[in-house]
């Protein structure tokens, strides 16, 4: 197929003779990403199983020995990373070595294990549990920025969430948090705004601009889920919250439009949930007599959203 196509393009004078030859070349197949996935799975299995092993055998191995082993491994990992690192740069560092990514990841995981171990066993930070999360979080952020590692950055953000009292990994965001608690909602909003601000700063100051997607992704999802919960929770204030909601949708739409269709689609869907809630609440407030209008609303809004999505698509294409 490719060859006949290339011939056709050559005939119509769209490509040069040399390009025709290039297109005919069969390249070697790259199994780069396949091998990396296997490697990742291996690292995941080893670190998890080591954790369980340590946990189960604490009594027979002894705390001191374990602490020494973990510390030595961790120091070895970080030493290796420092030795091979290019140093801090505010732009993206293109790693030539596959290994540095994984060794850093293992080092960071060991760091978390070590701090948690010290806290649970020896109460290193006493009753100040927050500190036991805060210190590794800072170290993770430093490692993420210094070695340019998005995975470690995600770990740091998760730790930041844990420190603030919220589980923000994708599946646990809704599962483990009780969004009917005022504290969780407010924390979610503050943290969400902070993460979105970090995204904007990293883009505008060009400090690790490629980190901004990760910040935005955590920030926007957290923010929207929190503010939607507030909308559902404070029934008396819902119009005010809806107003804030609309303003933030506009703002987030502005920062997403350039960067990611995924975030854009999420923003539209979250806005749809908020809008639909307010409309249905008003329609079905006194009785079920408006049930027809409600059903019609969903049909028409569905059709309307198709137009919205197509318009967004056009805008993205232009940019």
């Amino acid at each position, binding site marked *: 197929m490719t060859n006949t196509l290339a011939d056709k393009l050559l005939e119509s004078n769209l490509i040069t003779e040399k*390009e025709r030859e290039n*297109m005919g070349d069969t390249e*070697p197949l790259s199994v780069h990403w396949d091998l990396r996935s296997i*490697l990742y799975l291996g690292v995941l299995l080893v670190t998890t199983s080591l954790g369980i092993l340590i946990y189960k055998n604490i009594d027979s191995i002894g705390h001191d020995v374990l602490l020494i082993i973990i510390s030595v491994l961790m120091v070895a990992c970080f030493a290796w990373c420092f030795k091979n690192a290019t140093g801090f740069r505010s732009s993206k560092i293109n790693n030539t070595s596959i290994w540095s990514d994984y060794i850093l990841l293992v080092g960071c995981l060991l760091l978390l294990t070590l701090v948690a171990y010290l806290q*649970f066993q020896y109460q290193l930070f006493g009753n100040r549990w927050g500190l036991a999360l805060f210190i590794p979080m800072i170290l993770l952020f430093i490692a993420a920025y210094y070695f340019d590692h998005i995975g470690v950055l995600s*770990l740091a953000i998760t730790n930041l969430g844990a420190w603030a009292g919220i589980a923000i990994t994708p599946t646990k965001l809704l599962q483990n948090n009780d969004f009917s608690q005022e504290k969780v909602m407010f924390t979610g909003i503050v943290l969400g705004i902070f993460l979105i601000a970090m995204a904007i700063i990293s883009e505008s100051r060009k400090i690790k601009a490629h980190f901004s997607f990760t910040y935005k992704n955590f920030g926007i999802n957290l923010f929207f889920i929190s503010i939607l919960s507030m909308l559902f929770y404070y029934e008396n204030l819902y119009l005010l919250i809806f107003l804030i909601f609309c303003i933030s949708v506009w703002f987030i739409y502005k920062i997403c439009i350039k960067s990611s269709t995924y975030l854009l689609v999420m923003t539209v869907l979250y806005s749809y949930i908020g809008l639909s809630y307010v409309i249905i609440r008003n329609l079905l407030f006194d009785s079920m007599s408006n049930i027809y209008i409600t059903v019609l609303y969903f049909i028409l809004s569905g059709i309307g959203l198709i137009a919205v999505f*197509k318009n967004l*698509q056009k805008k993205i294409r232009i940019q």
Partner: protein
Amino acid sequence: MIAYAINELLNCHILEQGRENFHASKISQKSFQKIEGSYSCKLYTPGLFIAIGLGLVTTIALIFTAVLVGLMTSFSNFEAFAGISIFMTILSYFLLEGMVKSKRYFNAGVDNALMILVLGFTAGIFIISEINTPWILFNVIMMAVALWLSVRFTDALMAIISCAFFFVLCFLLLMKLGISAIFYFPFVMMLLSGSLYFIVKNTSKKVSFVYEKCMTVLSIFLLVVFYASGNYWVINEIQMTVFNEPVMLSFGWFYWIFTFAIPFLYIVYGIAKKDLIPIRTGIFLVMAAILTYKYFFTMLPLEIEMLLLGIVLITVAYFLIKWLRQTRRGFTSQIISPRPEWKNIEGLIIAETMSGGDKTIQDDNLFSGGSGGGGGASGDF
């Protein structure tokens, strides 16, 4: 027979190939612009996420249309429900035809959602009725509808669904011969899926480029089905469901060999044929084989097994990455294509799988709760 003009599909195909070659820096930007100038793609294919969004809202609109129809007819019995399903099937299909014709949707989410809805409402006609569902007829009709949709709209998902209904149909027909026919079922399935795989492989070069994607996806599906039809766990489950009691598999040793040998055979076959599809399928199925084994036997404590497996995986990956620095047998561990778009989510996967994540909120002061932790371990201390 195809809902799209062949010329239009061809233009898009050429443009796509041009873009691929441009990204692989095989042709210059100037040439690519020339190609863009001469071939324009008028079909509407948005990116993946926009398509998902479009599909979602289409589904919402159609489901609520069904609710509206239901409310207006104030249905009360199963016949009415079947009637609504028939109406909705026809409505969805005509919407699909109309949208594709007027708006030129091509894998735009709207058309994909409508195809799934056509199938779903068709199933609704059968399932929501008081009489016992005639399963054979049901499968024949579902298979035919999905096949028609896949041929007319060149849709890969419909191709798989059609094929799946075909296999279920074979199972039902075989069971007509009596309950003992279940013992031949694995071999019938192997024969069917195996021969279908080679038919698909051999014809995919001859059929028109419009079905290229259907053929690729179908071949992956058939590889998986072939494996499943001899997998010990699958056979065991099917026989247990049929006999309603735990069974002792005859030819058990054969199924065990099959369970472990086939994934590796796929990988070897893929390497020999320089085809990534059997290789990747094989890698996944190795995992399936291990899980199958784990389901029936425990040799070592779980964490030791995980540790050993992890070490094996890291070692294998390590040596292959080193060994394939230079291209060997047409394979390389170097990056040729740029980082795939979905790799953006790598960070999320790390956050999801490697952080403990369980949190505990202490009520007295705000920034106090939660637990970070790593490797799924630290949260337990």
